[in-house]
């Protein structure tokens, strides 16, 4: 396993990422590289830059400085401390590399579960509807959503909606799946449903980057944990190191607040 990881190039590589909103520097030099099959958990206090990191990785925000590449595709290059992005068609190709699961699901409310999952593969990727629907059926089963195919999002629980949004992202066959606090809007029971699904994906070697406040979950599922605060990665390493034996004072302070 580890030899495979060393040979293959990273799925995504971000280097020297900087991002400011006005005077507020949200990312102050963040580098992150994720190997195929790796599960990375990002933890840290609100306002520490976790969400902005994810938004830059998913091209919802543009970097001020730094570079970003997906596999062989260089999406953003740093030229003299300023980031330059590739143009339209290549940007579109870059988006095929990843999927994103939002905190508030952001499902399309006017579409059924099945339509939510199949619309983008058919409309964006121009794949055959029959083939896409077959795959979607399998995803529905995998997410434990049988019987919900023809329901609309408002008829589902939060946990079900989040599982639909995971299925919607997976239907595009991304190489890496990002999660932005996927369970923050859910009660503990529904959280467990969603975490179970993510763990199953981890067991299948799905490459994932998960921003989460669920420390138990991060410890269990993540190959590597990043602690972010003040726009930088303060500490990173295996879960048992970062969560259980943090070296940095800031990490310790954050984790002790959580356990209170």
């Amino acid at each position, binding site marked *: 396993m580890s030899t495979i990881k060393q040979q293959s190039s990273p799925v995504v590589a971000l280097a020297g990422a900087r991002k400011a909103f006005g005077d507020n520097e949200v990312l102050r030099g963040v580098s992150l590289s994720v190997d195929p099959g790796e599960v990375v958990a990002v933890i840290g206090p609100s306002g520490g830059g976790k969400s902005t990191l994810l938004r830059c990785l*998913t*091209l*919802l925000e543009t970097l001020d400085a730094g570079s970003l590449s997906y596999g062989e595709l260089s999406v953003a290059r740093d030229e003299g401390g300023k980031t330059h992005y590739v143009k339209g068609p290549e940007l*579109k190709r870059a*988006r*095929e590399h*990843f*999927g*994103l699961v*939002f905190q*508030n699901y*952001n*499902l*399309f*409310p*006017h579409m059924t579960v099945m339509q939510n999952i199949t*619309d*983008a593969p058919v*409309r*964006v*990727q121009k794949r055959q509807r029959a083939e896409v629907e077959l795959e979607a059926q399998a995803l529905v089963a995998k997410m434990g959503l049988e019987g919900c195919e023809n329901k*609309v*999002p*408002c008829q589902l629980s939060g946990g079900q909606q989040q599982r639909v949004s995971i299925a*919607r*992202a997976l239907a*595009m066959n991304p190489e890496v799946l990002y999660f932005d606090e996927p369970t923050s809007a859910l009660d503990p029971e529904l959280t467990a449903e969603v975490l179970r699904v993510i763990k199953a994906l981890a067991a299948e070697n799905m490459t994932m980057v998960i921003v989460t406040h669920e420390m138990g979950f991060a410890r269990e599922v993540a190959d590597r944990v990043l602690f972010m605060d003040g726009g930088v990665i303060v500490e990173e390493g295996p879960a048992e190191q970062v969560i259980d034996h943090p070296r940095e004072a800031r990490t310790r302070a954050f984790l002790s607040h959580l356990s209170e």
Partner: protein
Amino acid sequence: MDIATMLQMLFEGFLVSMQIFAFTLIGAVPLGIVVALLRMSRVAPVRWITRLYISIMRGTPLMLQMFAIYFAPYYVFGIQLTTDSKWYATIVAFIVNYAAYFAEIYRSGIQSIPRGQYEAAEVLGYSRVQTFVHIVLPQVVKRILPAMGNEVITLVKDTSLAFSIGVAEMFSTARALVASQVSMAPFAIAAAFYWVFNFLVEMVLGLLEKRLDYYHD
């Protein structure tokens, strides 16, 4: 003149009113989308010009707009006006006037769609046009239906303004009949025609709302 003849004449006027109504909707419903998009353009001058257009359309009487559009070809270009000119001026004035109102309703609907819908579509790779047509627009339609209903019902009654320019729609006929027959009955009948038609409009709107009732957000 017996009631049947009056009804017959008013009904013919009513058909003309309905033509104004139909042409206005066919023209203004799509034109309103264009105006709404221009109103939200990233290019500031485009936004300003569109705002000015909407402001004039909403801030001056439709009746004056009809006159302006009717006489403009003659005064600006020296084109000789024909009997058809009145009809075309009426339709054009109604379309550009109603497109302004529709545009503001569309804009309110478009701007009420949460940011997250655009972001979800963007990450999935939808183009801007695909996002608008397949993700945003269907949700906008549901949200603006009640406000559009108001405008459509107002439009039915506004068709009577065409009388001022001399288009022989139902209200003109009713006025002529009231004068010649020395009876208020034609007005009452015309009112009944407007109301019955608007009752149908309300039913259609109700059905549309019900069809879109399968979800909420």
